[in-house]
């Protein structure tokens, strides 16, 4: 069995997408996780539920509304058009935006749990040792939450690699631009190219298993797929 150029381009595109999305999610998700882990605001449960929505929503629903929002008539679409960026659907940046929403809970919840597990005490100790709020965050909270960050990055990456419905809704099936692995497998099956489909599908099974094995070895998948409370 030989992978065709299309397959290789799908693999490359998927890795590029997942890496970029994971990076963005760590940047966006960390402050959200910090806030969720520490706030006493009544909005906490509302925000927590919103972040967790992609876990239960069918990807098609999420993709549908993202398509509307990002499309030429949608609020985000009009904004991007006004900024001269054009419409995002059916582009790689569009995929990135959609994936960030789709994988958000898988990154936020492990980090949130890790922050919550640290408790207040180490941060208080750091304050009595003259550490400013920023220093307390970067020198104490982040290093102590390291296992949570590793879990978050692995889960975010793996989950983005595995997405299908949202991609199909928002990105379509454009080779080299939005045609990711899962879509490519779908194409092969549609075309009755089962051997090709096997090659990619089996690869994904092995990849996912290895990632999860790593996570369980780290002991990091407690409550990760749950509510994050």
């Amino acid at each position: 069995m030989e992978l065709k150029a299309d397959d290789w381009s799908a693999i490359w595109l998927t890795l590029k997408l997942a890496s970029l999305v994971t990076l963005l999610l760590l940047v966006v998700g960390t402050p959200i996780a910090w806030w969720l882990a520490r706030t006493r605001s009544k909005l906490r449960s509302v925000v927590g539920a919103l972040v967790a929505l992609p876990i239960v929503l069918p990807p098609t629903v999420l993709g549908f509304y993202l398509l509307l929002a990002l499309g030429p008539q949608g609020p985000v679409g009009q904004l991007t058009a006004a900024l001269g960026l054009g419409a995002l659907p059916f582009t790689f940046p569009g995929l990135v935006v959609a994936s960030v929403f789709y994988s958000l809970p898988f990154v936020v919840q492990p980090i949130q749990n890790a922050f919550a597990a640290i408790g207040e005490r180490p941060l208080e100790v750091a304050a009595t040792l003259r550490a400013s709020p920023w220093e307390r965050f970067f020198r104490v909270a982040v290093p102590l939450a390291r296992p949570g960050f590793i879990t978050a990055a692995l889960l975010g990456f793996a989950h983005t690699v595995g997405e299908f419905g949202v991609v199909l809704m928002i990105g379509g099936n454009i080779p080299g631009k939005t045609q990711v692995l899962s879509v490519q497998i779908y194409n092969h099956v549609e075309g009755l190219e089962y051997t090709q489909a096997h090659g990619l599908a089996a690869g994904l099974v092995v990849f996912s298993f290895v990632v999860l094995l790593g996570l369980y070895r780290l002991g990091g998948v407690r409550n990760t797929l749950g509510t994050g409370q």
Partner: protein
Amino acid sequence: MNELCVRARLPLADFTLDADLTLPGRGVTALFGPSGSGKTTLLRCVAGLARAAGRVEVNGECWQDDARRLFLPTHRRPLGYVFQEASLFAHLSVRANLEFGLKRIPAAERRVGWDAALELLGIGHLLARGTATLSGGERQRVAIARALLTSPRLLLMDEPLAALDARRKQEILPYLERLHDELAIPVLYVSHAMDEVLRLADHLVLLEQGRVLASGSCAELLARVDLPPALDEEAAVRVDTTVAAHDDAYQLTRLDFSGGSIQVTRKALAVGTRARLKIQARDVSIALATHDRTSIVNRLPARICGFAAAAHPAHCLVRLDVAGTPLLARITRLSKDQLGLAEGMPVVAQIKSVALIG
């Protein structure tokens, strides 16, 4: 200006913390009281970890003043804080824990040297270790050194020995005493253990239900009989003595103090050294005449200064004066009446046992 002023008012779950204290700006002040009396909360207010209404001033430096809308956040207050459990940073080595605070202090403001702190707490050999491999006592010594290395103007200690067993406590107490003797840093020391207070404190604040019952010098306060029943089982005085002689035949050591002398089982102390004794009220009884035959060795002529109620209605506390040294006795009210005890009466204080506390 050499004093600590703390005024704090903060509603808590069961009561309102309401303290207005002026404390000496040097030496060790113990905040003493039962669990849940607001000691720790008061300490947290001084540190800025909890926010009460009021004012905090430390040796002329204002940390909080609601009237001026001034509230320095904790990391801007030059204090050291030792928590009940050592709370070392698990992701850092012992050395990195110690450096965490130190490196945030400008070199010109460092008054406690690296070597001095390591030597004072005996932790030089632990530097390369991870925190998980330390014993409870070692962890707490590292935590104390870490706080000291920030050259604090005030050291706050929240029951630093409470999480340790008796042996570890004995291991750390000498270090705390050296801290007291060698550093001119005022210390606020929260405790509910009378032993520690007697051993370390110069000044004592008694707290109950968030209120200050009494504040004064340790010796003076402990000999008062009007103190709350909270103190009852623990009621004791501290007597400073010097080792006078050893009796080899009977294996006893004689300790002299201004009011007389006390004999204890032989101690490995050189003649002339200081020995601090704790004498608990429940270990002191009263006799009317010196010629009563008894097995009790330590019998001191005393005069009755006053009475007070004790926690149990069967008991009462008697304040005695032994040639200038105050002593407390806890006796039954029945004995008081049978012996016809009254203020001003000369009696004999019989001391059943004493504890050497340093």
